[in-house]
């Protein structure tokens, strides 16, 4: 398939890897902040092609993983109401709340439906006028315009039986939060190509300047990632710290105007708690005041939930790039995709799930910390 197979060519990949090895003179630690990239790195073994000392750590790039537990609990609570059809992207269903997940709620009779696109939720609402359709809207900037469009259409078409439970997150504030943390290991970032397709990369320029870290907007295929690493390492070796765009076939500096416009129309920036990381100011999107009628939290009332129970799970450290999944004593033994202790083992975008799936519980990783 075009734009896929040629970016997975093994010979070209090894030439990139050789080029990286030639320019690297000392150890560097880079972080990618996109679950899709984490998945590709582990699946294709890109980290194993890199010279020793060049370490990739995996950031909070999985929107499902960072959705706070209170939102999972709220979604479950709402889904249990007999009049409700709760629509969600598939990955959310197995994410544990304080008491079970959406799958469990479904097996106990809740009407929970997996959708592919936010507009599918509207179609369900149109077809079931006597039911309350609630769309559990999560994601990064990539998904925000599509989710915003669902709310926008609902308002335009005067839907009375549609609302959204919104827990959107924004990438740049999370990057700042990681860089502000004392003792951070991250020396350079591969920024998420799809997020930047929507938002452009102007927002990253002050971050690169303020923290002195190179940021390379990077795609998702193996060659994209290898080129992104090469560009990032070249900057580090030369003492530069600017934003570069590897993913220029999709990303323009200003991003996608119409998509940003609808985000501004429907959403407002709010503080957000990131699961495993904590509260980050101005790091989320919630529905704007003018869309309050479509806010499921208002429609169904607030749900108070307990604090997340402490476990031996280190997913918070994994999400911050301080540890890799196999560092966890529970990895692959007491924590597996069937019986996950933490959310990074649940979502297919989660770092622990990627390591478990592609490295196995029994195969020691190579080249990691």
């Amino acid at each position, binding site marked *: 398939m075009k*734009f896929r197979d040629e970016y997975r060519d093994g010979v070209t990949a090894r030439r990139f890897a050789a080029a990286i090895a*030639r*320019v690297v*003179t000392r150890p560097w630690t880079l972080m990618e902040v996109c679950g899709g990239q984490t998945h590709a790195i582990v699946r294709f073994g890109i980290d194993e092609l890199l010279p020793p000392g060049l370490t990739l750590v995996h950031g909070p790039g999985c929107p499902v993983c960072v959705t706070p537990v209170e939102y999972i609990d709220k979604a479950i609570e709402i889904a249990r109401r007999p009049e409700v059809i709760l629509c969600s992207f598939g990955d959310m269903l197995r994410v544990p709340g304080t008491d079970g997940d959406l799958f469990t709620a479904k097996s106990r009779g809740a009407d929970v439906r997996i959708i*592919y696109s936010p507009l599918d939720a509207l179609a369900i609402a149109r077809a079931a006028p006597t039911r309350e359709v609630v769309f559990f809207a999560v994601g990064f900037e990539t998904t925000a315009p599509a989710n915003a469009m669902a709310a926008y259409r609902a308002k335009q078409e005067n839907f009375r039986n549609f609302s959204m439970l919104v827990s959107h997150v924004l990438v740049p504030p999370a990057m700042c939060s990681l860089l502000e943390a004392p003792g951070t290991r991250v020396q350079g970032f591969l920024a998420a190509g*799809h997020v930047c397709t929507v938002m452009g990369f102007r927002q990253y320029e002050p971050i690169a300047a303020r923290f002195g870290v190179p940021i390379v907007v990077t795609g998702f295929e193996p060659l*994209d990632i290898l080129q992104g690493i*090469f560009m990032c390492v070249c900057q580090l070796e030369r003492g530069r710290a600017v934003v570069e765009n590897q993913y220029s076939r*999709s990303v323009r500096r200003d991003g996608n105007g*119409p998509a940003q416009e609808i985000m501004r129309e429907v959403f407002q920036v709010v503080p957000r708690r990131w699961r495993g990381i904590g509260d980050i100011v101005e790091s989320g999107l919630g529905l704007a005041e003018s869309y309050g009628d479509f806010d499921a939290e208002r429609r169904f009332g607030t749900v108070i939930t307990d604090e997340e129970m402490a476990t031996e799970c280190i997913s918070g450290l994994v999400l911050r790039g301080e540890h890799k999944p196999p560092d966890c004593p529970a990895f692959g033994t007491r924590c597996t995709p069937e019986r996950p202790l933490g959310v990074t083992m649940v979502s297919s975008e989660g770092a622990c799930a990627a390591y478990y799936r592609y490295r196995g519980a029994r195969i020691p990783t190579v080249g990691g910390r």
Partner: protein
Amino acid sequence: MRAGRVDFGGIIKEINLAFVPEASVGDHVLVHVGFAITVIDETEAQRVFLYLREIGEFVENEAVKL
């Protein structure tokens, strides 16, 4: 809303084109949750391969200086 049929290597899906007003028939688009979010620039798409050729020379000439 503007929509179009997008061919994903033999799978065809109706995709919302509201965010890519510039897209026309025959363009390649990047799709996320049912929405096209950009038109792929065919010229830029070749850059990764040209880049490798350039850095081949760069690595030969510059690596020593770094």
